[in-house]
């Protein structure tokens, strides 16, 4: 049976809706379903309408649906805002202590959450677990499976708390069994799947960085990037790495450069405004050929913009940031799985070519949770590029030796008898400032020449859909899920729509992209921004101008339905 359910839990910040959402997502994942879950929240700690949306399906999913199967309303606002989204036969479960009776609402179930929490778990706040229990009951889930997930979730707070929550959830189940009259359209069917992790995009980046052997992360808190460093930071002590919260982003990138220069794999994690502050340091990385991975979690700008929402507005900025000319790579994963592998690749590219490499994400991908099979760690290859052995590293070492490939073997201070010198001034082979015209020219060519080799390491775009599609949706990064969903929908209706997804954007794989777009009658760029940045880049690099663009720039992620609708309207031309 095809299963595709969407659970939406809505309420105010501070009501604990994340807990219900996360518990349900995890419990459903453990039932073998594929999950896509994401949060919509405000830049505040208490109040404001927030929601958590979990999609659980019997097939892989990479974006959200508009139609809700089960709405859990912790406040009345949730019903006002999302009530219309509940699909045919869908269920509304609401906190009867927080709002007047919603009797008029079809298939609705009032649940006295605090009361249940108190009665069964001993505390009103456990009402959240009661809500999860009620949902689980309506789904027809195996009670023990929810128990287990609750135990794991609350284990950090001690056995007593965990057991109380289990009891509260059981209370919720009982209540739902007793009071819910109608049948629920969603009957959970357990699937025999391999075990899967439930991982946000940021979790995947953190895992990727750790697997790649990153030993230093410098950062200053900023949504939606912060969880990358907190997840990694939790491993300090267990794994050989260190995290330090910098006083600002300028310091963060320079600390990371210091660590990289001293010999470890090093990264920063930030968002637009923080990245803006790192731009001078980025240029220093370029000049001094210091490897660095930059995680850039985009959010809507300009300036502080919408701090907790999503956008893909910084592609061209990342591509051109930094004064002067130096090579770089820009990778943009489309889901958690790609986020892991591209982060690993980012470190290899950075060290092999001694350049800064971006992992370009956005709030949607950063915060959304995906089910992914555990990564094959044996397949994680660490290539640190050319590094002199301690014995070879003696007096006369030239950090920026002019070589055929433009790559000069690295050596690290204190790791041999020689000394390493480098500089943000134009320098000679030894790494000391020079004013010589000829050397300047050679050093520029050396640095930029590496782009050729870097380009050869860039993968072609991914293609999804039928052979010889009539229309191609050209997208990048987190646009993947929505475009695939749209294409599948349209192709099911008899169209021939393909998706070309660019995960590796720079050096731009022009020939591969031309090939991928070759047969298509129409190329439509699909991006979460207002100016059609990939479309511009495509024309710059290939001369191909997309026929139209599908754009969104209200801070809320697009999904398949949006793409289908906008495509029908012909898209827009932002260029």
């Amino acid at each position, binding site marked *: 049976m095809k299963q595709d359910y969407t659970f939406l839990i809505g309420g105010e910040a501070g009501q604990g809706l994340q807990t219900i959402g996360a518990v349900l997502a995890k419990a459903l994942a453990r039932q073998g379903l594929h999950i896509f879950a994401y949060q919509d929240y405000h830049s505040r700690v208490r109040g404001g309408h927030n929601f958590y949306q979990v999609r659980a399906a019997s097939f892989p999913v990479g974006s959200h649906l508009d139609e809700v199967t089960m709405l859990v309303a912790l406040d009345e606002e949730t019903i006002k805002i999302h009530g219309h989204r509940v699909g045919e036969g869908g269920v509304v479960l609401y906190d009867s202590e927080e709002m007047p009776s919603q009797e008029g609402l079809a298939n609705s179930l009032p649940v006295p959450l605090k009361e249940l929490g108190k009665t069964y778990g001993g505390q009103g706040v456990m009402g959240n677990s009661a809500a999860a229990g009620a949902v689980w009951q309506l789904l027809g889930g195996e009670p023990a499976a929810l128990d287990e997930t609750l135990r794991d979730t609350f284990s950090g707070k001690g056995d007593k708390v965990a057991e109380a929550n289990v009891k509260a959830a059981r209370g919720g189940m009982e209540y739902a069994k007793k009071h819910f009259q109608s049948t629920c359209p969603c009957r959970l069917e357990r699937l025999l799947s391999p075990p899967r992790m439930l991982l946000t995009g940021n979790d995947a980046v953190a895992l990727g960085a750790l697997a790649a052997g990153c030993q230093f992360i410098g950062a200053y808190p900023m949504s939606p990037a912060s969880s990358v460093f907190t997840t990694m930071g939790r491993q300090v002590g267990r794994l050989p790495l260190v995290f330090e919260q910098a006083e600002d982003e300028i310091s963060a990138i320079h600390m*990371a450069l210091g660590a990289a220069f001293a*010999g470890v794999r090093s990264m920063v994690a930030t968002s637009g405004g923080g990245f803006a502050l790192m731009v001078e340091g980025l240029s220093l990385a370029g000049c001094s050929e210091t490897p660095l991975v930059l995680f850039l979690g985009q959010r809507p700008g300009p300036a502080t913009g919408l701090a907790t929402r999503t956008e893909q507005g910084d592609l061209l900025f990342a591509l051109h940031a930094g004064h002067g000319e130096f090579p770089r790579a820009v990778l943009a994963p489309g889901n958690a799985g790609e986020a892991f592998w591209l982060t690993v690749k980012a470190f290899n590219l950075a060290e092999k070519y001694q350049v800064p490499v971006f992992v370009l994400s956005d709030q949607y991908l950063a915060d959304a949770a995906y089910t992914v099979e555990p990564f094959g760690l044996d397949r994680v290859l660490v290539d640190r590029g050319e590094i002199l052995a301690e014995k070879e590293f003696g007096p006369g070492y030239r950090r920026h030796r002019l070589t055929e490939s433009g790559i000069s073997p690295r050596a690290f*201070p204190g790791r041999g008898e020689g000394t390493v010198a480098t500089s943000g001034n134009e320098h000679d082979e030894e790494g000391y400032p020079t004013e010589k015209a000829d050397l300047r020219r050679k050093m520029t060519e050396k640095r930029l020449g590496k782009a050729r080799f870097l380009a050869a390491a860039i993968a072609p775009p991914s293609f999804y859909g039928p052979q010889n599609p009539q229309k191609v949706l050209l997208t990048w990064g987190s646009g993947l899920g929505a475009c695939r969903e749209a294409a599948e929908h349209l192709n099911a209706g008899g169209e021939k729509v393909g998706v070309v997804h660019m995960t590796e954007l720079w050096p731009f794989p022009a020939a591969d992209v031309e090939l991928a777009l070759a047969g298509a009658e129409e190329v439509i760029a699909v991006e979460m921004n207002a100016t059609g940045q990939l479309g511009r880049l495509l024309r710059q690099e290939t001369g191909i101008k997309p026929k139209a663009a599908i754009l969104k720039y209200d801070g809320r992620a697009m999904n398949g339905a949006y793409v289908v609708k906008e495509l029908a309207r012909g898209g827009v031309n932002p260029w």
Partner: protein
Amino acid sequence: MVEADRFHTARPKTWCPGCGNHQILEVLKETLARLDYHPHQVLLVSGIGQAAKTSQYIRTNTFNVLHGRTLPVATGAKLVNPRLKVLALGGDGDGYAEGGNHIIHAARRNVEVTYMIHNNQIYGLTKGQLSPTTDLGSPTTSYHTPSSTRPLNPLRFLLGIGASFVARGFAGSREQLGDILEKALKHRGFACIDILQPCVVFNRVNTSKWYRERVYDVNEEGHSPDDLAGAFRLAGEWGERIGTGIFYAEERETLNDALLGRDAPPLVERKPEPRDVAPLMKEYL
């Protein structure tokens, strides 16, 4: 000073004759040699400015970074390789203007870095602009009138942010400067030395002679480096008498101690393995 030869480089110096930087460079080489450091054990992170050129004229590991950014780079390097003797070095503009925020937080972190600020009270390299330490009433090329804002008092600033080692030297008092630098290099923590450095071209007010007529050694006059209140008071002097020496010194936990544990093996010597991530992956199942 035969041992100082190990730090010798043939690179021609581009400073003006008579510039205080020449003296500071010599003291730096001598002191490192006296403490028996070898070039490969030392990392000098330098900024941008005349002072910052110092790292071109001494053989050590060096990362010549951007204007104002020495301390974060030094911090990152020290965190992953505590075996390196890390120094940061730059001018008054590099430190107190562009780099001011980093000083505050390096002091808070107490990262084990020796920080030398060559304070000529002017922007040398860019030709005579106002510095945060330019005296009231001194001419600069920034304004058509003499400086009209009160300068920052570097020592009070450093004491106020709780730096664990605060000293002032004078390029012209070589022996004393060597002593101070030696103690700074031995200090487990963030050691700052504000060094009065004559600039013979752009600072015609605070000349060598001007400094020499005013400097005295606060420690010789009985000031003890554990007396914070006294240090704050003495730091207020800037006129007839200008104190030099060690104003304050205190032992406390360093950043490496705090984040990685005292005597933890350097991260650069530990090789991470992809498979070590397996337990963490399990947590997501």
